[in-house]
């Protein structure tokens, strides 16, 4: 067992393929996440990202393998693991505010009504929502506002691990940008551990401490763990000027465009741990990207 805050150990997921056999989505996947780390996972559609996330959330069970968080095995959902789904995270019959207060009240059952209300409003304001939208139903909010409410709710219960499944997938590029900024701002003030799925390479570089790259399914695996060697605080406009930005970006594009396919398929390894990749042009001795043995 590794000593990471969250450790995923030899996780496999198989589903019946409808013809009497089985499809293996991923096999023997192992990786860890440190406390306070922001980890983003990138991979082609259908490789099993959401499946991994649902297992981390405790909403689904893996066919084999375990997830250990803070020394305890994950079994079933818990307030310790907050989730923001791509859509439908909010209950449509509750106002924005009520969507947060019910979570806060569930998290802190001994708080008074006033405490719950103040705490909830504080978090809604933190993501840039003003008081006049608090009482609107989700259907009366724009897509961006809705995801802000979801993020406010997730942070308001301070879970040990925050899971985000393509939280901005349905938003236009401009809205995406501003909400990414809000997310970074809110996250910077906490020591929140985040595990996020996205399809957007630039979003991943902006937000992540580390990016996990998955090969294509079936038999997908987490092949690489790319460190984002760009100091924080980061900013969408300035980040592109950092010498490491394009190097890292190129590496990711290459992986998703080429290696994810080449590396696909089953391996004989008993455990598929990602190779650590560190690209740093600012380091004194310039090294080529080093891919450790898989």
């Amino acid at each position, binding site marked *: 067992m590794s000593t990471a805050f969250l450790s995923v150990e030899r996780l496999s997921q198989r589903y019946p393929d409808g013809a009497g056999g089985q499809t293996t989505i991923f096999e023997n996947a192992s990786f860890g996440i440190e406390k306070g780390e922001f980890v983003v996972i990138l991979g082609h559609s259908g490789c099993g990202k959401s499946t991994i996330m649902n297992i981390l959330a405790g*909403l689904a069970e893996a066919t084999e393998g375990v997830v250990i968080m803070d020394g305890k095995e994950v079994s079933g959902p818990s307030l310790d693991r907050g*989730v923001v789904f791509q859509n*439908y995270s909010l*209950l449509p*019959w509750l106002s924005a505010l009520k969507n947060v207060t019910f*979570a806060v009240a569930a998290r802190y059952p001994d708080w008074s009504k006033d405490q719950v209300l103040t705490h909830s409003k504080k978090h809604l304001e933190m993501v840039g929502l003003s008081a006049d939208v608090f009482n609107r*139903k*989700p*259907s009366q909010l724009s897509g961006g506002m809705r995801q802000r409410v979801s993020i406010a709710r997730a942070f308001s219960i301070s879970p040990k691990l925050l899971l985000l499944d393509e939280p901005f997938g349905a938003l236009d590029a401009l809205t995406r940008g501003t909400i990414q900024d809000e997310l970074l701002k809110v996250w910077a003030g906490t020591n929140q551990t985040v595990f996020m799925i996205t399809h957007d390479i630039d979003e991943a570089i902006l937000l992540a401490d580390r990016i996990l790259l998955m090969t294509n399914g079936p038999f997908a695996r987490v092949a690489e763990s790319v460190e984002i060697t760009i100091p924080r605080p980061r900013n969408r406009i300035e980040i592109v000027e950092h010498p490491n930005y394009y190097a890292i970006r190129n590496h990711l594009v290459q992986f998703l465009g080429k290696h994810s396919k080449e590396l696909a398929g089953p391996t004989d390894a008993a455990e598929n741990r990602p190779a650590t990749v560190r690209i740093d042009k600012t380091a004194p001795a310039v090294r080529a990207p080093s891919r450790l043995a898989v």
Partner: protein
Amino acid sequence: MTDMSVNKRAAILSFILLFAGLLLWEAVIPGQKAAGELTEYERLTGGGAQKAGVPPPSQVLEKAWEQLSDPFYDAGPNDKGIGIQIGYSIYRVLAGYFLAALIAIPLGFLIGMSPVAYKALNPFIQVLRPISPLAWMPLALFIIQDSETSAIFVIFICSIWPMLINTAFGVAGVRKDWVNVARTHELGALRTAFMVILPAAAPTIVTGMRISIGIAWLVIVAAEMLVGGTGIGYYVWNEWNNLDLTSVIFSILMIGVVGMALDAMFGVLQRFVVYSE
């Protein structure tokens, strides 16, 4: 005209249609002759009675005014005010209906939550549902031995199915993501049921309740014609036996008005629970 709201224009059109309809009705009914004016021949062939039977709207309105100005008089078993008769019918409908809701909604919840319960109960529901509620009447009268309770039972049996089926359907169709929201917030079974599943399924459930109350009101008239005694259904039948067609038409209109009011109540409830995604 063009800057008038759609509602206003529709209301004006409604009034025109009503007025034209009444006028037409009044016009096609030949003027009534008093019994004394009938010829011997007309009296023998019964022609006079038939003509006298279909009243013009003016008479119905007169009747309505007379009845509605004193709806609750009670002059013996065969002569009660329209208000009392409708009161009896509404009481029976609501009694049977709420008993049905009391069983259908919790049971529907269970069926919706559990695929096993759904599969196990489905054959029974499918067989029992298409039975005309009035077909139960003889059996109910025989077993219960009381016409009042039998009428309530018939209402119960006819209103249970739409509520049961809609509740089960609504509960089974609750979006998985909303249930997952409840699960990730550790809401527990009872709180999940009341905070997530019930509000999510409420529009479907209320639709079922609305269908049920409509059916119950349709059935009570027929049931009361069978069991007799009191109620609007009995009243219609009784006035028909008295050949008082003015009262028959008036009570038909009242059945429509009360049915509309019952439906409107559920319309309000529906607006209250509806949500858009």
